[in-house]
Structures are given as C-alpha cells and as structure tokens.
C-alpha cells in the first residue's frame, strides 16, 4: 500500500473509533480526538518502518513496540500519550475490526458449516490448549521467580 492509501484507510479507522467511543461509551468527539491521533500516528509509523526495514517482522510487532516506547518512562511525551490513549475505551477500536473480519470470512460460511462437528471440537481444543499451555508455564515461572 502507498502512503496515501495508509493515510486514507487509517483516517477511516479513526472515524470508526470515534464513532464506537461515542455510541458505546458516550465519549465526545473532542474527548476522543487526541487519543485517536496518537494511535493513528503510531500505526502510520509502524507501517512506515515495515516498509523501510527489510526484516520479516509483522506490522503489528512494530506497532506494539512503538506504542511501548512512546509510553515508557524514558519517553518525553509518555504522560500525554498515556492520557490521550486512556480516553479511548479498550474495546472501542475493536468493533470495526470485527466488522471487517466478519466480511472477510463471509465467503467461508459454507465451508464452516461443511467442516462438521469434529473440526469444531478440535478447534476448541486447539484454542484451549494454546492458552492453557502458556498459562501453566507462566504461573509456574512467576511462582518460581517470586514475581507473584
């Protein structure tokens, strides 16, 4: 995607966040604006880094790391970033993701129905197992290292 595509699609995403924050949580547009701005700038920089750096890292990795750097104590703007992002309710950015995700798998509804109950059971076990494996190791290591 070219930079103007990023600017445009991210601007649409920003409007979606403002709408969700307003409808779902009653936050006014002016209240949401700084947070939306911060999140979109980070997302745009992440897309830029992904385009420049020749590593096979996903864009979300850059995005998460940039967010962390912007908000950690050594960042001169950490206070502003944390406050602004705090005004965006946790689930507000997600409704639009869900809408697109639903549309993006809508042509697979038939295979979902056809895949049958065996694969549904296996999928539930896959999700549970992936979570539970990490949970057990995390709990054990946190205990052993005395963090909890």
């Amino acid at each position: 995607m070219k930079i103007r595509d990023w600017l445009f699609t991210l601007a649409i995403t920003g409007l979606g966040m403002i709408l969700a924050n307003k409808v779902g949580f009653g936050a006014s547009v002016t209240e949401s604006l700084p947070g939306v701005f911060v999140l979109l700038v980070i997302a745009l920089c992440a897309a830029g880094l992904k385009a420049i750096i020749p590593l096979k890292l996903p864009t979300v990795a850059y995005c998460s790391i940039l967010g962390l750097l912007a908000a950690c104590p050594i960042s001169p703007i950490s206070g502003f970033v944390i406050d602004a992002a705090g005004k965006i309710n946790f689930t507000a950015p997600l409704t639009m993701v869900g809408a697109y995700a639903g549309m993006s798998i809508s042509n697979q509804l038939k295979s979902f129905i056809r895949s049958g109950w065996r694969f549904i059971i296996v999928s539930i076990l896959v999700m549970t197992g992936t979570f539970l494996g990490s949970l057990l190791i995390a709990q054990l290591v946190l205990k052993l290292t005395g963090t909890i």
Partner: protein
Amino acid sequence: MASRQKTPTYHSLRERIHSEWILYLFAFLFILIADSIGQIKIPVWKGTFIIFPIFFSLGLGLLTGPSVLKILDDKKVKAASGLVGVAILPFIAKLGINAGANISIVISSGPALLLQEFGNLGTIFLSLPFALMLGLKREAIGACHSINRETNLALMQDMFGADSPEAQGSLSVYIIGGMIGTIYFGFMASMFAATGIFHPYALGMASGVGAGILMSSAVASLSEVMPAYADKISALAAASETMSGIDGIYMAIFIGIPLCNYLYRKLEPKIGRITKYGRREQS
C-alpha cells in the same frame, strides 16, 4: 477450496474508494448497531460469559457475504481482509502503550514471558490425541500444530501444498477460529480466571497467542472479571502477543510440525482407527 486470501492492489486512491466504499459504509453501520447494543453479560458458574460489540459486528459482517445476503462478492471480501490488518493497528498501538505505561511489570515478568511462549505448543498435546480419536488423519497435523492464524495457514500451504490434507486441516481451524474464536476465547479465559488457581499476570500472558482478535477477546473478558488488574493484564498480553507474532512461525517450523509428526507416528496406529469415520478415511 479457498486459497490464502490475497488482497487486491489498486492503481489509485480513487479506484480503492470506488471499490471499497461499501465496506466502509457497512463498518460504520455495524459499529452503530453493535455499540448501541453494547456488552451483554451472562453469569456462568463463577465466571462471566461476556458478549462484546465486536461479536455483533463480526456476525453482521458475515451476513453480507456471498453465502447469505450476497451483497459482497469475492473481490470485496478479499479487500475486507486487507482492511482487517489496518483496523487492528490502533488497537495494537493502544496495547503497546499499556505495556509501556506498565513497563516495570513487563520487565519483572521477563523470564515467565519468554518461557510461556513455548506453552503455545500446548495445543498439540491437548488437541492431537482427540483429533486422532475422532478419526482425523493427516488433517490433524495442520489442525493441531498451532492456533492456525494467517501465517500458519500460509506455512502449511507452502510446506505441504494447498490441496494437501494438512493444509485443509489448518484451513478448517482457521475458519472455525474466526467464526467462534472471539466469543469462545474470552469465555474460556474468564472460566480459567474463575477457578481462582491462576494469577492475573499469568492469565494476561497466556492471552497473547499470536491472534489479535482472540487476544483482545480474552483481555476484554479478563479485564471485566478482574478490573483491579486490567492494566497489567493488557500490558502482559501485549508483550506476549508481540513475541508470539514474531516467534510463532519459527515455533511451528522447528517444534510444532516435527512434534506433530512424531506424535502422529506414535499415536495414530494405537488410537487413530477406533472410529468408523477413521476406518473409512484411512490414508
């Protein structure tokens, strides 16, 4: 069969808008509907079954496609899958910010964070034996080797071929995960929280499995049932999710798939043919 969805390329922004405007319109409409409904909480045992707006918008999105209302054609469906990757970025940025604001907890949990990444292989031990008992054959390798998000799907198609049973198994779990994952993953996380055995930090780390939409469902549910720890849960989930996003493909190549193959050879002759379905499908 549906191969990996490739997003269309446009020559100009005008062309993109001309092609995608209906997707934006639907997205805004679904936000309006989904966030007006808001969260629905149903207490189950000591946990809470929470339905977030994302589930409604996902369901509405599903209806627009070629299978039900036929408003979107395959080309628009593929364009939507490209937009998922854009729309999730601000959310990931927000999680990163949470991690930065709680950096001390992330650093002090360092060893646990690193080691729990191997826990993502837990799927294999839990799901592979059951898949074989249910009569799955080589499909089980693809289905059980990982959480099966986009990169894993591409990997299976690359290693075994798009028409291979392994890739078919991977695709099935990918699709089912997309359909029911947002609602199931959060519920499951809140049920583990309800047992009272696990620390919120461990629950937060476990949520980062390399699938943004599943992680967000788990973090949102955990934050509801453990509000005092909400910030720390999302910080640790973000750190774990970032790591899983990077190491996931290597975990699959170097450990997940070889381990699945090994267990398949050991277990399949013993438990693999006990169902009628399995006898018929012997390969």
